């Protein structure tokens, strides 16, 4: 019924039987359900057609792989781009491997690619699916109609790359929420989540959280399209009221969601830490991941919203200060594009043909003399320059070393400050020791490092996964020193849990 094969087949469910009530409302509902049903057909098709593949592929649950693929693509859809093809294949392989662990990895990969290509439907020129269904027209006659849809579509990314995105149809099939409003569905999902958490039903909570995430992705996708459209043409938007209102609304929405999700996060964290049962703990941890991801997406959305204002202003400046001129009388969009698009194909084509014929300019016809042809054919092909022009050798000038302290001094100071974790020391003692071994300069360097340690770079150490961190604390004692004044800091080394931090980092990402 769907899928690569063309659409000569007849839908069996309507080809016979008594005529249903031809009321337009009933029929419309039927058409909608038929279309929803059609969206699932490519998945069933995969299992039906796997027998045709060369090899023994019946062990694989293709529909399961396909749904997993749609999940993966949806969750990897970023604000700017979509999901990367190779990445999706790589992430699908573990699941496929679990279905048939004894088969070679190459076969698993082949299955992943086959499923993904079939979801895109690479074989057809539209790269989509078509289903045929029938409806009654208002005058009571029966018409067969084509329903075209896509599940995963390929979109252009930066630098000419191709990314995957799931379509609205696919998201609807996936979450099973047909015909719903994005915003309200999101709110509903979150309320549900909160209730579930309060009652301690984490298994259901996870499901709801995942649904909320799908909604979040869908929501940011809608906004992304809106912003992109605005970037293209500032004149098309009412910038005095509507757009600022829209942005303010969206920002409010993000703030709202952010508060909400942070509240949920706190709750689940508490549940995660308090619960005794390992299964609950694991689920709660997964839930934390999901909600964190939601928050990350909202933050991304928010930064995009904040950029929108300056973008409008720049565009406005560029376009508004052009001098007004006389009009030519032809408004290409209003007079041509807009009227042509709703026309039926066979009429629209006359207009586009006329535009093409008169709008492409001229081509000088090529005529080749036999004598030239021989020359052309005998000329060896020109070697193409793959590497481009040769880079000139850069002329580097050595800059004089004007450091205040030498490397040796730094090493000596570091050695002095390499304190055992359980034995912090007073700055005064360190300074005296430094002065004895390296004179005033070393003492000065030690003092600087100690002051620096008063505000330790915790964030950097966390990101870089360092194992220890120098810190300095002021406990109110005055420094008694001939060269330096101020507080006699307590300098010590804090040991950091590098493994724990690494785990935490992955969790945060």
């Amino acid at each position, binding site marked *: 019924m769907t899928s690569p094969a063309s659409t000569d087949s007849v839908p069996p469910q309507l080809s016979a039987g008594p005529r249903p009530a031809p009321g337009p409302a009933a029929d419309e509902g039927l058409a909608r359900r038929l279309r929803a049903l059609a969206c699932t057909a490519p998945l069933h098709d995969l299992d039906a057609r796997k027998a045709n593949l060369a090899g023994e592929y019946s062990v694989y649950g293709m529909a399961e792989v396909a749904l997993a693929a749609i999940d993966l693509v949806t969750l990897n859809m970023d604000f700017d781009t979509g999901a990367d093809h190779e990445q999706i294949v790589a992430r699908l392989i573990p699941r496929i491997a679990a279905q048939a662990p004894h088969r070679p990895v190459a076969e698993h990969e082949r299955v992943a690619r086959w499923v993904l290509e079939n979801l895109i439907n690479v074989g057809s020129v539209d790269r989509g699916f078509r289903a045929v269904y029938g409806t009654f027209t208002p005058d009571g006659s029966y018409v067969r109609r084509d329903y075209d849809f896509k599940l995963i579509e390929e979109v252009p990314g930066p630098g000419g790359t191709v990314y995957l995105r799931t379509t609205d149809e696919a998201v609807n099939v996936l979450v099973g929420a047909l015909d719903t409003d994005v915003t309200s569905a999101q709110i509903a999902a979150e309320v549900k989540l909160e209730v579930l958490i309060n009652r301690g039903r984490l298994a259901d909570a996870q499901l709801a959280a995942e649904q909320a995430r799908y909604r979040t992705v869908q929501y940011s996708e809608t906004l992304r399209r809106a912003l992109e459209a605005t970037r293209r043409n500032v004149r098309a938007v009412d910038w005095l009221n509507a757009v600022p209102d*829209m942005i303010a609304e969206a920002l409010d929405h993000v703030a709202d969601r952010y508060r909400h999700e942070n509240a949920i996060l706190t709750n689940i964290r508490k549940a995660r830490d308090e619960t005794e049962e390992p299964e609950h703990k694991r689920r709660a941890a997964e839930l934390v991941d999901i909600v964190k991801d939601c928050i990350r997406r909202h933050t991304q959305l928010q930064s995009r919203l904040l950029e929108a204002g300056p973008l409008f202003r720049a565009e406005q400046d560029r376009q508004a200060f052009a001098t007004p001129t006389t*009009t030519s009388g032809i408004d290409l*969009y209003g007079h041509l594009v807009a009227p042509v698009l709703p026309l039926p194909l066979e009429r629209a084509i006359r207009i586009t043909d006329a535009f093409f014929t008169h709008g492409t300019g001229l081509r000088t016809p090529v005529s080749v003399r036999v004598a030239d042809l021989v020359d052309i054919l005998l000329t060896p092909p020109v070697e193409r320059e793959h590497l481009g022009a040769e880079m000139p050798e850069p002329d580097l000038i050595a800059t004089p070393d004007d450091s205040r302290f030498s490397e040796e001094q730094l090493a000596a100071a570091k050695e002095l400050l390499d304190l055992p974790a359980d034995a912090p020391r007073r700055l005064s003692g360190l300074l005296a020791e430094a002065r004895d071994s390296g004179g005033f300069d070393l003492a000065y360097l030690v003092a600087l490092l100690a002051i620096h340690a008063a505000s330790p770079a915790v964030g950097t150490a966390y990101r870089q996964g360092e194992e220890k961190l120098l810190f300095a604390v002021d406990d109110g004692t005055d420094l008694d020193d001939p060269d330096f004044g101020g507080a006699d800091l307590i300098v010590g080394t804090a040991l950091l849990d590098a493994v724990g931090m690494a785990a935490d980092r992955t969790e945060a990402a």
Partner: protein
Amino acid sequence: MSEHVEWSDTEAPAPSASAAVTPADAADAARLVAFGLQPKLQPARDQEYTELLRRYRDDPAFARLADAVAAGLGLVVLEVSPRAGMAVTAAEDSVFAVRMGDYARRTAADSGDRFLHGLAHLAVAALAFPRPEDLADDSYIGRITVNGVDAFVRQACRRLEERAEEQGDNTDPATDAPGLEAAWRIWARRSATGATKDARRLAGSTTGIVGKAAAFLTDSGFLQRTGDDHGGTYRTTARYQLQVRDMAGSAAMAELLELGVVPVTDGTASLLPADDTSDLDLVADAGLPFHS
């Protein structure tokens, strides 16, 4: 308006002043037309070209001779000026005319493809000159990107789709009458891009089709490629403005009127906000409030 009009005004008293035409004059006139046949050649870059353009402007007899040579070859003179050079274009049925079948092979068999290629050219022009003023202003330079054109058309299609949905229309076409399918659906259901084995743009995708149009227009001297971002960025040339304004726009309009479709606008830009701002609920429908 274009300088071309001013010069044609001076043609009227010319006949009495015309001296005998020598073969050398005819050769020069033909040479000027030959320059015009190289659309990517810029007058400022070639001294002889500049010289002949000046002669066209100053010598009405020579101008008429050059016009006659062009007409005899099946060319239409759009403008002769230092900025556009000898802007000539192919008359219909001229040997210089571009035929859709030569342009893209598939279009012969598939009317959907034929429409997509035509619409791509129309959309490139519409986005290059979004306001009527842009088309009239000789100094205006339009900028387009391939992905931008595709997104622009998709936006318009989406708007139509939403409108149809609002009205409860079922736009799915009847199976046995593909010619009756609404034109916007053809573009909307074609994929925007696609992965290919050799990392080139998928020729049948809409960005592939727009990219082909942009590359072809660049070869016609209508666009200049300025970068590779967003599928390729281009800016328009004076010739493109002339071609769209004086030839393509009016030809397509005439065809549209013949079909009985009369687009009514008041001459101001139609890419404007709609009156009912409820339409501007951009979050929900992600559509630009295009008028149609």
